[in-house]
């Protein structure tokens, strides 16, 4: 079996078979950040000097979505021939933030609706001799 390699390190995990986004959380004001990016809190009213590493909610509600029919330029690792891909914006309730992700393979964008529950999965974005290069994606969830 080919190894699974995150397309970018440190943004997500699928340890234990559970897809999770890896962000930052401010222990002082409670704000969340994805990506974590900085070691400090970006809330200007907060004096928090360090952020904790934190996993974000893996479920949220669909805020909007798009279905892309043309190959993006590099650094997108477009397959040849190009395969259209959806992008979803999902609102996480606890974090009160919207996070983008591709739509999971096989998702029919025509059957989506605003506010429906979505869950995080990790799937291959592309494959090469080194292995399966994975990324987080959003999949209609909650039994739908």
């Amino acid at each position, binding site marked *: 079996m080919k190894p699974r390699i995150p397309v970018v390190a440190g943004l997500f995990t699928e340890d234990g078979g559970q897809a999770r986004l890896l962000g930052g959380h401010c222990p002082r004001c409670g704000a969340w950040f994805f990506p974590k990016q900085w070691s400090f809190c970006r809330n200007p009213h907060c004096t928090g000097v360090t952020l904790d590493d934190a996993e974000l909610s893996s479920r949220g509600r669909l805020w909007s979505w798009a*279905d892309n029919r043309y190959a993006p330029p590099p650094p997108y690792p477009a397959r040849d021939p190009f395969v259209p891909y959806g992008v979803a914006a999902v609102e996480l309730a606890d974090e009160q933030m919207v996070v983008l992700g591709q739509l999971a393979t096989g998702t029919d964008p025509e059957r989506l609706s*605003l506010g429906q529950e979505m869950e995080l999965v990790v799937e291959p974005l592309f494959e090469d001799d080194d292995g399966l290069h994975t990324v987080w994606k959003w999949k209609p969830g909650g039994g739908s």
Partner: protein
Amino acid sequence: MSDVRILGVGMHPWGKWGRNFAEYGVVAARAALADAGLSPSDVQYLAAGNTMRNGYPGYVAGSTLAQALGWSGIPVSSSYAACASGAVALDAARARIRAGQADVALVIGADTAPKGFFGPLPGDRPEDPDWLRFHVLGATNPTYFALYARRRMECFGATPKDFAAVKVKNSRHGLSNPNARYRKLFTEDEIAESPIVADPLRLVDICATSDGAAALVLTSADYAAAHEANSRSVRVAAVSTVTPTYPNTSLDLPDIATDSGVGAPPPPRAFRDSIAHAAYEEASLAPSDLSCAEVYDLSTALELDWYENIGLCEPGGAEALLHSGATTLGGRVPVNPSGGLASFGEAIPAQALAQICELTWQLRGEAGERQVENARVGLAINQGLFGHGSCVILTS
């Protein structure tokens, strides 16, 4: 604070020729100076918007253009703020004049655009949000426009036919504009046959990238009064170059996530609303005072969002306002009388200035077939990547 006026405007037509961006900029600058009745040696400060895909000369656009126009020893600045670059350059020039450090400033934006989607620079930069969104998601600019458009459809019942109606309107407005790149009237049928780029948006819903240039001569009120014989000047009533207020929970290019709403009070208004709000406050004017507006129609659907962001109607009211004809030439408050980005395509550092050129011609009554009747107050608005809002209000 002292008053600042626009004494002259000029453009190089929009198109796709691939020539040196500075060549376009020099043409626009000379046109603006001629319009003001001034010569290059009258200019005391030059502010330019940068372009990021034209090598080093584009990083120092102010100096490149100053050299091409003939070094005269004056201070120059070269600013970048993505789509808002032109307005930020105008803002710098206005402050310079208000500070009493110059009476005459030249503001220039010029670009030569590559073909296709804008992509990031080569390299491997996971900490660059612009690189990250392309690499992990394939989230091009049209992807974001499509997310906004779909959101409108779901929240307000907008349809692709509504978006098409924006295109029909703007393509009609631009028909007679000598500076527009596309002078073709689109029909709803043609639009429906256009290929889908990022569903729900089709190719014709999304603005192209163009070559082009625009320039303004900005002066103190006293200088304008003394040179009024040369040209009819218009007043810069407000320039807003606001950034978001934390937490910015609206999805913005190029980020892959918004701020979190936890732990801080929500800002008094959403970022896009705050852009025009700051300008209205400065000008002591209200949306009902507008004679016309130039809004950044990167997509057809986005023009509808702007109607609400600039207060022409309540959220969800844009489609009805559009179909009422209010925003069409001849209506109550024509939007994008120039033809907008739909007719121009975007020349990044030039576009915000091109909006101001159009408003200047409208306020002077020199817009020909595009003329908005009795135009007295015009607003131009846009938003660039990385939190760059820009809104300018001009009055006659």
